[in-house]
């Protein structure tokens, strides 16, 4: 082992650095939130409908969130690329896994912030009147899905960071990879937005999202070293 800081203190330091940059520049999260609200407006005019309910509402919400995730993933390595910060990180005696954990944690926080804005905005703007939203289970589904999204997003961001057509590669790579999350997320959310309340299906979908999270976390930790090697 190297004689550097431990895995968690290194990840924490990298995460704090990313959050400090985001707090100063305010680039990713406001853009993601603004983007999703704009998509809601587009959905209204594109479909000519004022409200959505049930499966359609869940599907549109998830598609919007996933598209907003693409924006965040596109910006994830931008500081490193523009200012050459990744070399400094790689020179420091820290485990490469710490870079992954730091980036994924940052993306996770961005996604949570995005949802804090986008989900109430969706409920306000487009959700059918009188829908009984089960807030706590919905928050659970969102948080669990964010873990998987953050893992895949950090991996995709690192994979695309050295390519020429970065902003094209990220959506083409990320969107097919998150299709299972879109299926599971939308199916789990559908009963939570309607009057039906929670359904027995919910646990099955949460289980699936959990498996997805585990698989991609482990996979990313296993392969991330090869993306940063030099």
């Amino acid at each position: 082992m190297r004689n550097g800081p431990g895995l968690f203190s290194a990840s924490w330091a990298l995460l704090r650095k990313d959050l400090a940059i985001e707090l100063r520049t305010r680039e990713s999260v406001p853009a993601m939130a603004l983007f999703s609200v704009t998509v809601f407006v587009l959905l209204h005019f594109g479909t000519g409908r004022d409200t959505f309910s049930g499966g359609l509402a869940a599907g549109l919400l998830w598609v919007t969130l996933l598209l907003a995730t693409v924006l965040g993933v596109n910006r994830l390595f931008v500081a490193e690329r523009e200012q050459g910060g990744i070399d400094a990180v790689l020179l420091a005696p820290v485990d490469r896994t710490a870079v992954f954990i730091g980036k994924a944690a940052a993306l996770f926080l961005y996604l949570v912030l995005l949802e804090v804005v986008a989900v109430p905005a969706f409920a306000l703007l487009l959700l059918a009147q009188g829908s009984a939203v089960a807030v706590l289970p919905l928050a659970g589904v969102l948080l669990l899905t964010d873990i998987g999204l953050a893992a895949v997003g950090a991996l995709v961001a690192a994979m695309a960071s050295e390519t020429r057509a970065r902003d094209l590669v990220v959506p083409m790579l990320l969107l097919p990879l998150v299709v299972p999350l879109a299926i599971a997320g939308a199916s789990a959310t559908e009963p939570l937005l309607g009057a039906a309340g929670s359904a027995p299906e919910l646990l099955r979908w949460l289980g699936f999202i959990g498996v997805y999270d585990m698989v991609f976390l482990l996979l990313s930790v296993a392969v991330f070293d090869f993306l940063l090697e030099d």
Partner: protein
Amino acid sequence: MFGRGLRALSVATALAVLVAFGLIFFYAPNDADQGFVQKIFYLHVPLAIVCLGGFIAGGVLAVKFLRSGDRAWDLRSYVAIHMSVILGIAVLITGSIWAKASWGHWWVWNEPTLVVFLIVFLLYCVYQPLRFSIEDSERQARYASVFAITAGVFVPLCFAAVRLAQPLVHPRVLTGAGASLPPSMALTFFVCLLAMTLVYVTLCKVELTSKHSRDMIRRLRRRLEPAGG
């Protein structure tokens, strides 16, 4: 040398394909439900199995590359995925034709295997652009391998998600690949599977031989040029 044994392999492939097509049209009986249209099954399903197998093989070969650092494994992984993408086009077109013939629509969203196949195909279509938008060849091999492994792990996950989303078991012809087929159809199916596997391996070998030759010529030219000029 990637070309070793290519001639014997090609002959075996040609024979296997001939026997397979002969069995399909002259030996296997017409399906009781679907009639003659079911003959597409012998082409479409083996192609799809070989194609997905090739994607998984690409992932395994990529692991071998990352473990060993030997560029030949990366080349094999690349060719395996490249050929699978090409077969994937045939799988989607034949699947679509089959859907039209037996269900009346060119595309059906409630056939999970077809839907998963489309998602997986879309993902693997990015392999080539990702690979060739990285200039440094050593880094190209590493990043492409990471992609191959990620996508290989993704394939079963995607199957699980789409299967879970099916509300009920919907009547399907190909449950358990040949398990419920009458023996004459099962025999034909397995011969077709063997033939398609051979076609895939032969195409991969041809591609590898041609890519390796091109690389060797490039190296020769590079050795000759500084001395000559």
